[in-house]
């Protein structure tokens, strides 16, 4: 499909109208999404109106911005004013936020068009998009397979060619893992680089919004639009973001790459083979590649599955039936009974599991053994990254341990599902940026993603390295819709 870079250039030059682009995308989703269920709803009227506004700007000789007329799919945990924002949950089935997320405003200011809201694991808890209350999303490369998750709908929209760009959120790998499984580029920025205002929280200290794209260049284009300080988010970094698009083609000459054994070893052989080929490709392009071991990464998963549920148990308390969303009256006059009935009916099994895990981890008498200990492990992981980055500029590993698995294969085995995030979690714990780049296919012909990790605020370097990986990716694997 046409890249966002090309599309925006054509719309800005008047060669194509934004309206034409948006109408075509809407028609594509209408006719094609029955097979995938990437979208929960389309913002057809809003998208057309925004497209017309972009065209009017072009007509008037003004620049509508770097994303002029480019349709962008929005994960359904991003607040859109007056448009359903369900987080894939029955408990928010009918919730229309009275405000836009900061990233949604940023997109609009850049001329981008929010095309619709994409399916996701309920409250971003999951790695397959099967935990959506509104039914699973299928992998456009093979509809018997999951698209990964939790941002499976956004990844599928880009993989299916519905939109050249999409927004997702990544708490433990929820952008990068579905990007890998769907054969697209997915990137998690530095924590605090992109505002979380209007992102419905899962785990506040880990959540970060980021781009999906078909190319690294497009991902950089979208990242530059999203990045920046937001006074509405206290954790937003005050420094001005470094532009990344201008340097994305600068290559890797002299860059020190650590091929991280701990992000490769446990993976399927075909995945391991692709990562090693990517490392060779980087070396061939002038990077200095060495193997490195960061054993602390092995503790990341355990720490994550205490910290994230702990924060989630608090963040999700507000869905109590009192002010908005689902309310189930228990028949009694007791508020607590109404709370319980609402939450019992409104939350899915995985959300309930994590609320219970998190509540337990924070409880008196258990806090030190679980939550506090997990925070100490988190510190260890950060220190391990610092040590690794004293010798290397970036790290390289797999994104996901396997290619896309069958729909239904892991729904009854939470631990197997959690293992999908083992390679992506360390970057969330440290708050560092990381990106997944499609790099050939596995033995089953499904896409494999290679992950590049960089220190905080080194997004420009991250995109440069990713772009070289992309350039050397084997052609053909998993490039078509099924």
């Amino acid at each position, binding site marked *: 499909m046409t890249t966002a870079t090309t599309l925006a250039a054509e719309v800005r030059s008047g060669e194509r109208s934004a309206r034409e682009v948006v109408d075509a995308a809407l028609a594509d989703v209408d006719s094609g999404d029955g097979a995938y269920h990437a979208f929960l709803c389309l913002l057809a009227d809003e998208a057309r109106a925004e497209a017309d506004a972009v065209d009017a700007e072009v007509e008037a000789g003004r620049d509508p911005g770097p994303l002029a007329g480019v349709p962008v799919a929005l994960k359904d*945990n*991003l*607040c859109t004013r007056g448009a359903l*924002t369900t*987080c894939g949950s029955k408990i*928010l089935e009918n*919730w229309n*936020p*009275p*405000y836009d*997320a900061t990233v949604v405003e940023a997109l609009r200011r850049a001329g981008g068009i929010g095309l619709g809201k994409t399916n996701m694991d309920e409250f971003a808890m999951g790695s397959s998009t099967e935990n959506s209350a509104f039914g699973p999303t299928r992998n456009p490369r093979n509809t018997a397979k999951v698209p990964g998750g939790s941002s499976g709908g956004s990844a599928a929209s880009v993989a299916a060619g519905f939109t050249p760009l999409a927004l997702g959120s990544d708490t433990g790998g929820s952008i990068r893992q579905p990007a890998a499984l769907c054969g697209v580029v997915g990137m998690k920025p530095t924590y605090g680089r992109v505002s*979380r*205002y*209007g*992102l*419905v*929280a899962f*785990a*506040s*200290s880990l959540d970060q919004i980021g781009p999906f794209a078909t190319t690294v260049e497009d991902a950089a284009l979208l990242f530059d639009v999203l990045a920046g300080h937001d*006074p*509405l*988010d*206290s*954790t937003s970094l005050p420094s001005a973001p470094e532009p990344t698009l201008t340097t994305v083609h600068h290559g890797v000459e002299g860059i020190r790459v650590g091929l991280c054994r701990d992000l490769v070893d446990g993976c399927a052989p075909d995945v391991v083979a692709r990562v090693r080929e990517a490392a060779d490709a980087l070396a061939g392009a002038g990077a200095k590649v060495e193997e490195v071991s960061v054993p602390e990464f092995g503790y990341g998963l355990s720490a994550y599955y205490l910290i994230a549920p*702990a*924060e989630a*148990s*608090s963040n999700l*308390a*507000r869905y*109590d039936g*009192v*002010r*908005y969303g689902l309310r189930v009256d228990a028949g009694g006059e007791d*508020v*607590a009974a109404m*709370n319980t009935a609402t939450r019992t009916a409104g939350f899915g099994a995985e959300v309930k599991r994590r609320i219970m895990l998190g*509540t337990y981890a*924070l*409880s*008196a008498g258990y*806090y030190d053994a679980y*939550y506090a200990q997990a925070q100490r492990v988190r510190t260890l992981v950060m220190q391990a990254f610092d040590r690794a980055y004293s010798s290397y500029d970036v790290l390289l590993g797999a994104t996901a341990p396997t290619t896309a698995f069958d729909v239904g294969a892991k729904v009854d085995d939470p631990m197997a599902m959690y293992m999908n995030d083992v390679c992506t979690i360390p970057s969330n714990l440290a708050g560092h940026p990381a990106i997944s780049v499609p790099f050939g296919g596995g033995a089953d012909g499904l896409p494999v993603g290679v992950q590049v990790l960089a220190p905080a605020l080194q997004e420009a370097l991250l995109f440069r390295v990713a772009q070289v990986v992309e350039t050397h990716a084997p052609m053909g694997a998993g490039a078509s819709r099924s």
Partner: protein
Amino acid sequence: MNTDWEMVIGLEVHCELQTATKLFCGCRNAFGDEPNVNVCPTCLGLPGSLPVINEQAVEFAMRIGAALHCDIRPSEFSRKNYFYPDQAKDYQISQYDLPLNADGWLELPDGFRVGVTRAHMEEDTGKLTHIGASGRINAALHALVDYNRSGVPLVEIVSEPDIRTVAQARAYASELRGILVATGASDGRMEEGSMRVDANVSVRPVGTDAFGTRCEIKNLNSLRSLGRALEYEAARQIALLESSGTVHQETRHWDESAGRTESMRSKEEANDYRYFPEPDLVPLAPNAAWQERVRDGLGAMPADRRAVLASALGGAPTRAETDQIHAVVDLGHDGLVTAAAGAGVPAKLALARAANEVAAQSDAGLQLDPASFVSTLAMESGGQLSATQSKAVLGVLLERGGGDPAAVAKEMGFEALGSDTLGAVLDELIASRPDEWARFVAGEDKLMGIFIQAAMEATERKANGKEVAAELSARRGSEVARRS
């Protein structure tokens, strides 16, 4: 109070800060607006919303910390998790193990120091109104929630369990209220809920050191409630212990109309709040320069201001004057007294007028500018106005929020009599009552009152009583001299 027992009391005081906006959003912080008008995604706890700390609230909290002699420390916000319909997010953003202010003290007027454990920041909840027969929660048909109060900044001031008597507890609350108002951080209005007191109470045999089991008493909406509830609770605990019973650690509700405390929840039923550091906020560590600015900018505290008034009186104040000094400082009218004393008005007179006439109108929210007060009292002490007239003029000035006392006096017909006029009135009086006058001159002092009263009536109360008395004495003196 049974003299075999001693009370051990610690107070937790919540005070609303009078910032322009709420603690974590830009909504107006105002009392008494239409319900649910000062709300936004953040203070309604809508999904996706985030808190951003209000700098003015931090400044006010630091003022309170500084006024209570606390260390101002690097601090952190935590989440206190519990479900309640007035709690928009079902957690409250508060401070837990790292409060902004810690380790301070408050000195009571008698010099006794009560330790202040901490004074931390947190957000207020929404306000629930139970609609039903009695207005009590258990009889309510339904409840209304007003989120205008949700997210209003609070500082919770926790005392050490240093307080031993009801009088100390009341003095602590009263002194703290004065300090809060003096810092400008709060209006300290208990009746509007901007200052709320919870008390932890236990009793122990006099002469022992170990603490007894304590109960926490909530819903103390006035100093009077605080005193009554403490008396009741101490008596309840003592009665239990003397009959070989046990005090159970619990939270108790003060029922003002019934005059008793009732069990709300036991320790076992108490929430596990599952505190953890608030990930949506960054640590709060005011730097040294900011702390210094706050300490330097702190105005005089009530104790200092009371000392200023006492010294203006010259000599040790009487018991009544001490009470007047407290009343004047509590109401913030000490500026009137010092201004008057500075202008040469007798301080005792200024204190009395401020503590009585001005204070009486303070409940109605009436204020007086120092200039009007000083001019009025100057007229009174200079004899142009009688005491009665001066009080009446002050009343009018208070109602009007100031004005020219001379003009008001004229308007009210309070023109002072010229000494010629007074002389003529007295000539006539003496001539019309020759017998009484003779007895007065002969030494029957009590007749002085009759002449003064008659003079006041004859002048429609425009005469100054003291001046009349002085003139009468002078005339008697010359009469006696002439006869001898």
